[in-house]
């Protein structure tokens, strides 16, 4: 299906589902109406709950649903709407208590009833989930622990919230309404089971074997994987996959990396991995022959998606990986379109793939500007950061309506994006890839 059509379709379906609880609450038999603020509190509770439930759909990695937008954007949305949902859910008890302060006693787990206790549990779980996510980096919580806790608390929140709704029961006053709500919660918990149990079971039959681990410059490693008894996968250049290196797919440790190999090859896929933390620093110890599992391809950052008569790639550090794949793919396809690459890194020795890029320069119409923060003696190229002046000197003047693809550290992408906008590049010609999902 055309990407725009399916994108609009899923969005409309989503907006409709978001409104279902309100519609459902108006289907007779309806309990007697009450004061405005009380009913507002109740409505916010219901829409908040539906929103939290939909969060499970957003993370379930349905490729068909996420493809029109790119899973990174879907997760970006997941993060933002979570705050909206929790705000609605916090307003729920607040308004109900304001409507009748006598209900304050419901906040005491010993003073309330079972409905209020489960409601309380759900709110606490949600608040903990949000706080952990917002403060994860500050408290240096290990990513894997955070992820396990996030998922666990999410499930507690939705099950407790559903129990609260069923017990309070005012708006679930018929068996079929109960069934719809309980069914919804059950499906969401089912999605988690699917993601963490069913998908790994399916992955088991699609194992990969490490065929090469090569050290590149700048603490970066090239990890090559070949399919074991299956036909591999097809990706668009610039996409990424979640990689697990373990004997079984049931490991919680799983990291997203962009493919660096050509999309025209399916006998082997290569990832470029920079040592940034505990997982990526173990690359030197990964043995040839080790087993790996992939979940992918995901992502919307690809030149195939943004067709243009020419491209400008702007990479910072390990952000070069998606571009490496795009350039290799162009070479394999004999793609004649011109590409200007601006590649910023700390020092000349840290520029991870510059030998490969030299080779590619022979096969693709490629111009490269290196921008070094800490250049060697006698360096004649650009130095410092990718500033408006650097762009002025290195951007092509060929008048093509080029597409600008950016991947690098967030401050760099922000700065470059504003510089480009200032130069009059239309916003829809600028595409970003953020190497941070959460």
């Amino acid at each position, binding site marked *: 299906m055309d990407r725009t059509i399916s994108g609009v379709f899923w*969005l409309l379906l*989503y*907006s409709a589902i*978001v*409104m279902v609880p*309100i519609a459902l*609450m*108006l289907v*007779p*038999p*309806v*309990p*007697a*109406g*009450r*004061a*405005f*603020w*009380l*009913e*507002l509190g*109740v*409505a*916010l509770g219901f*829409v*908040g709950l539906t*929103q939290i439930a939909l969060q499970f759909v957003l993370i379930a990695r349905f490729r068909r649903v996420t493809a029109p*937008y*790119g899973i990174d*954007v*879907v997760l*970006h*949305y997941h993060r*933002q*709407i979570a705050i*909206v949902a929790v705000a*609605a859910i916090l307003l729920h008890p607040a308004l109900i208590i304001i409507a*009748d302060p*006598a*209900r304050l*006693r*419901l906040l005491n787990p010993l*003073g*309330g*009833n*079972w*409905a209020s206790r489960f409601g309380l549990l759900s709110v606490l779980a949600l608040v903990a989930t949000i706080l952990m996510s917002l403060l994860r980096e500050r408290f240096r919580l290990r990513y894997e622990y955070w992820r396990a806790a996030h998922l666990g608390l999410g499930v507690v929140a939705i099950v407790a919230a559903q129990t609260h709704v069923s017990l*309070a*029961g*005012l708006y679930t*006053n018929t068996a079929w309404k109960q069934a719809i709500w309980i069914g919804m919660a059950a499906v969401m918990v089912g999605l988690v089971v699917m993601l963490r149990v069913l998908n790994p079971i399916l992955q088991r039959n699609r194992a990969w074997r490490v065929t090469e681990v090569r050290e590149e410059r700048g603490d970066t490693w090239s990890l090559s994987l070949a399919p074991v008894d299956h036909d591999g996968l097809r990706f668009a250049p610039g996409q990424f996959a979640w990689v697990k290196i373990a004997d079984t797919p049931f490991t919680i440790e799983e990291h997203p990396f962009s493919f660096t190999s050509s999309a025209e090859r399916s006998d082997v896929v290569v990832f470029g991995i920079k040592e940034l933390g505990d997982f990526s620093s173990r690359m030197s110890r990964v043995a040839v022959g080790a087993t790996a599992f992939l979940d992918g391809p995901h992502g*919307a950052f690809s030149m195939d998606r943004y067709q243009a008569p020419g491209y400008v790639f702007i990479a910072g550090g390990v952000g070069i990986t998606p571009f490496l794949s795009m350039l290799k793919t162009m070479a394999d396809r004999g793609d004649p379109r011109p590409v200007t690459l601006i590649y910023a890194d700390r020092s000349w020795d840290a520029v991870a793939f510059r030998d490969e890029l030299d080779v590619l320069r022979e096969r693709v119409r490629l111009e490269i500007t290196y921008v070094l923060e800490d250049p060697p003696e006698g360096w004649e190229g650009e130095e410092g950061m990718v500033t408006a002046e650097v762009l002025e000197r290195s951007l092509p003047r060929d008048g093509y309506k080029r597409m600008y693809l950016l991947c690098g550290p967030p401050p760099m992408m922000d700065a470059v994006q504003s510089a480009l906008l200032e130069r009059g590049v239309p*916003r*829809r010609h*600028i*595409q*970003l890839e*953020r190497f941070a999902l959460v």
Partner: protein
Amino acid sequence: MRHLLANIVTYSIALLLFIGAVLFARMRSSQYTLTYQSAVLAAYEPTPGGEFRWRQIGAETYTRNCRSCHSADGRGWDEYPGVEGADSIARTAEGRARLIDIHIHGLATDGSPVPMPGMGHLHDVEVAAVLNHIVEEFGTGGSVETFTPEEVRRRRAGGNDSGPGTHPAK
């Protein structure tokens, strides 16, 4: 570009949610769909001197407004008391007035950690019907005089009625 779109969607959905919730609350608080006044009156055609046919309305009113707290069998659950005792209360004039008042104004006593909400917006027909319903369905038996819409109307007019949506009486 895509991130920008995601932000726009976030704001739109947030707006949609809050507008939806406010509309819902407005509708509910203004009794838009609620007492089904026309349905109630259509089912109950007061014939002067005729008998009050309350059974169906009583059962429906109970399902809609009471069952979630007092449960399907009228025995209540957890903090919510049962209503089995209503028939004995309904045998005295004060008791009958009190039962009607509970429905119109609500009830908050020290005997229960949660209040019963006032339901002054219920139609006289509904109040009378649901009282008959709990007396007959959950009571211990024995004859109790039928509540009539007229009795509820008199109580509303005579008692210190401050209109629908009043706070639970102390």
